[in-house]
């Protein structure tokens, strides 16, 4: 769906994209990264709004630098900023966006109503957009991005500034699009939970470089493994035996519970050997799944 090869873009002294190379497929892709990572620049490059200094950009099989209009016809974009049409109502804004994409007036109006129903904007759709709350603005922007029935919709920080209820509703919509035969979604955010909840693939960026690109399930802590260990009864020598084998042990509130972090490349057998040596009675041993936050911090090189 998205194929980038050596994409580089510089704004003055700032290198916004530094040799971005990745291939992304999926129904919902999270674009993660701290502020200034190059997420918005990358979205604009995908749209053909910014021409990269170097590299190739292919979106949905089209070259975004050579055929930007054809790409934009198949993409929807909800920008992060306050971009709006002052003086228009929500309905007029969405219908206008449809007409800009070539839909005829009548079809644009019908489609605008459908999309506003989808994003949950009720009769306030007839009010001037300048009277809208942040949540309503975001919904209108998403409706404008969807109105011409794109194959891929780019949402730039769609949940920023939203109250929890509106945020839930918007993320539900992304899940609905992912699962309901709508366009694929590229969701740019710095909220890991949003990605965890909605996406099946992700691209992690930092300082204009790709740190991870692939399925969310593949995003794990690749080196050190952490295990939750629970004993039937306390066994103080076990912690010492584990530490002697190079593992880091963190005792829990109760003495029979501990967290064991094995050194890089060490197999789980190291734990079993220590258990056998100290004759400890194991009740539970389970590898701890790395949270997305841990994996993200690891990917951008800020893991604790």
């Amino acid at each position, binding site marked *: 769906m998205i194929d980038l090869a050596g994409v580089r873009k510089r704004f003055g002294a700032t290198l916004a994209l530094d040799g971005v190379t990745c291939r992304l497929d999926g129904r919902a892709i999270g674009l993660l990264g701290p502020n200034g990572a190059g997420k918005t620049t990358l979205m604009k490059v995908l*749209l053909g*709004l910014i021409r990269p200094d170097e590299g190739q950009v292919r979106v949905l099989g089209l070259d975004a630098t050579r055929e930007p*209009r054809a790409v934009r016809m198949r993409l929807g974009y909800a920008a992060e900023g306050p971009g*709006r049409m002052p003086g228009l109502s929500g309905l007029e804004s969405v219908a206008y966006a449809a007409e*800009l994409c070539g839909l005829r007036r009548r079809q644009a109006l019908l489609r605008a109503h459908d999309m506003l129903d989808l994003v949950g904007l009720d009769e306030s759709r007839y009010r001037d957009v300048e009277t809208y709350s942040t949540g309503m603005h975001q919904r209108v922007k998403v409706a404008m991005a969807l109105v011409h029935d794109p194959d891929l919709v780019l949402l730039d920080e769609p949940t920023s500034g939203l109250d929890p209820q509106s945020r839930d509703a918007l993320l539900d919509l992304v899940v609905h699009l992912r699962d*309901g035969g709508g366009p694929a979604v590229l969701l740019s955010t710095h909220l890991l939970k949003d990605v965890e909840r909605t996406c099946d693939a992700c691209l992690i960026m930092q300082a204009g470089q790709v740190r991870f690109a692939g399925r969310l399930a593949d995003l794990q802590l690749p080196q050190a493994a952490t295990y939750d260990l629970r004993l039937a009864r306390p066994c103080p020598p076990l912690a010492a035996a584990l530490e002697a084998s190079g593992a880091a042990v963190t005792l829990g509130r109760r003495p029979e519970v501990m967290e064991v972090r094995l050194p890089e490349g060490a197999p789980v057998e190291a734990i079993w050997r220590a258990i056998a040596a100290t004759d400890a009675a194991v009740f539970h041993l389970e590898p701890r799944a790395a949270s997305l936050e841990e994996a993200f911090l690891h990917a951008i090189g800020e893991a604790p």
Partner: protein
Amino acid sequence: MTEDRVHAIGYQRIAAPGRRASAIWPIARTLVTLALKRRATKLALILCLGVVVGHGIWLTVQLLSVRFAAELGMRAGAFRLQDAVGNVQEVLASYLQIQFYFTTPAIAVVAGGAIADDRRAGAFELYFSRPLTRLSYGLGKIVGTAAVPLTTLFLATLILWLAAVGIAPPHIRADLWSLALPALVGAGLATAVLTAGMVGMSALARRSTGVAVAFVALLLLGSAVAEGLAESHQLWGGYLSPERDLRTLFDALLEPGASSFAGSILGGRARVNPSVAGSALALGLYIAAGLGALWVGIRREVTS
């Protein structure tokens, strides 16, 4: 479950996209629709309507009096009457000249923010993240802006001419047929000058009010200064005034002759530039400068 309950049916793809419509007309229509919501626009257009009605009355009185005089065989009287009420050429030339003054603030109110407001509201991203070319955007803004002078100058001139043809006695009607083209060419030129100047200034600015004030000041006060130069024997100064250049062309096209008593009430025949070709060239340069500014303004905002 009640019958009037609304059910969300989820995301639906567009079944039959159909042929794509041009975005020029929606852009123009939206510009005019937004302008018509403002009270200042309505006031400016009412004043323009007043000019049309005033000249319509003058034309009607003139032609009916000539007609009655002709029917009563008062040829000598009719000549005196014509000295008092003028001829159709004079009405049309006067109309174009006076309506130009009234249309200048009207177009400034309607289209001062045509592009400046898009820049201020961050709407460029909204436009150009869609399959819209800079040309379509520019043409849409030109058509929307031109709607005002096309109505107040071009269409109204056509209506006045048609009224003249309808009311005029047969011996005058034959002369009026040949008047349509020069009158409409004059109206078209005024339309082009006002439209190009307005969109050009709006494309370079950020605030609609500032653009409107600057446009009116430049066109009307600047013209007054240029008139002053021309009257103080600096003849080149006359070509710096678009209004004087237009007046020169109106007179050359319509050949209204000496000012009548009715015409002198409305200010009479003002002086014109010595060279019609020079005025035409100056107007061409104004139009080119306006369109050039529009192109530069759009290009500055949108890279591709």
